[in-house]
């Protein structure tokens, strides 16, 4: 057990030691899951991110995401001869944002675990509805495994909170997988 932990720590350190300063570009896609929002259903999304890590443990990134929600369904006139299942447009979301990264942010060979925290401009568009434009905040972990070629595969999860008028919020769980290319400046 102790041996396993030591190997795990060494792997993390090895990865971080590879690149002192790193610039990386990545694309990703995955799940866009609303939390306690009956007027939407889970959908998909994809995005692109440029990440700059001036040190192996600290970084910043800018990203763009395009996501969609599934169409929600309800039953109207329940229990009557006219009972129907109705659905409406779940809509599309775009987010342009920035985030800070703490942990294994520098690229290099091996696994790199990090945390991200950030904010962005959230715009939700639905057919027949007015657009909702708000600031979103997000927080979550990521894990990237780097290869010698400079490529890395990555999985990350984000809890996104979009405060709305009246003191409520819309919340989403985002789970993405993707690939990064590290230019590795130093």
């Amino acid at each position, binding site marked *: 057990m102790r041996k396993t932990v030591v190997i795990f720590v060494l792997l993390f350190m090895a990865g971080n030691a590879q690149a002192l300063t790193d610039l990386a570009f990545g694309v990703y896609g995955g799940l866009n899951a609303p939390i306690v929002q009956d007027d939407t259903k889970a959908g998909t999304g994809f995005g692109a991110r440029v990440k700059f890590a001036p040190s192996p443990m600290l970084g910043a990134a800018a990203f763009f995401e395009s996501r969609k929600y599934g169409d929600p369904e309800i039953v*109207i*006139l329940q229990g009557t001869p006219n009972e129907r299942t109705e*659905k*409406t447009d779940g809509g599309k979301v775009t987010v342009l944002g920035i985030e800070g990264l*703490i942990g294994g942010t520098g690229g290099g060979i091996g696994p790199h675990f990090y945390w991200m925290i950030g904010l962005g401009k959230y715009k939700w568009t639905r057919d027949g509805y007015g657009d909702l434009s708000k600031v979103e905040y997000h927080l979550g972990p990521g894990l990237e495994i780097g290869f010698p070629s400079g490529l890395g595969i990555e999985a990350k999860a984000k809890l996104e*909170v979009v405060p*709305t008028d009246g003191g*409520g919020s*819309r919340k989403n769980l985002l789970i993405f997988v993707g690939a990064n290319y590290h230019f590795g400046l130093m």
Partner: protein
Amino acid sequence: MKKNLLLTLALLLPVVIAGCLASGTLVVVFDIPKFTSLPLSVVYQPINLTENSDYEDHKDKLKSIDEITLAGFIVNSGSSDAISEIWISDELYTDTASVRENATLVFMSRSIPADDTLFLHWSDGRANMRNLGVLEDQIKNGGQFNVYGIADGSFNLEYDLSVIISITAGL
């Protein structure tokens, strides 16, 4: 500097999240009992949203009303085309003139041909809604009011509708 920025973000985020995390968006569907309206016997249909458990459970924790719309059937059994109007009021009226004079118009359909049925999908109804602020006030203040269905001239309209209300409320 960057560390300070990250620290500030890290401190602010939990405050923002804690303030609004304990909320959710619910879709309340209230089926209005079917009713038929004629010019000489305008029928009111009392609405009591507290009969809906989702509304009843969250009415005191409402943060916002995100959508109000109607879905269902309006049957024009009359001999001429009709544009259906739905009005609401706390009071009781039995003729179209009193309804128009005292109640609030909240819905206006497209023209429904004689002996035809208009089906409103969830996504359709919203464009036909009027005076949503008054409806929102009714929903925020107890959710009990009367609904009237009328049209110009001679009409014979049968309503079988559901009110769909999306609310954001504390959990």
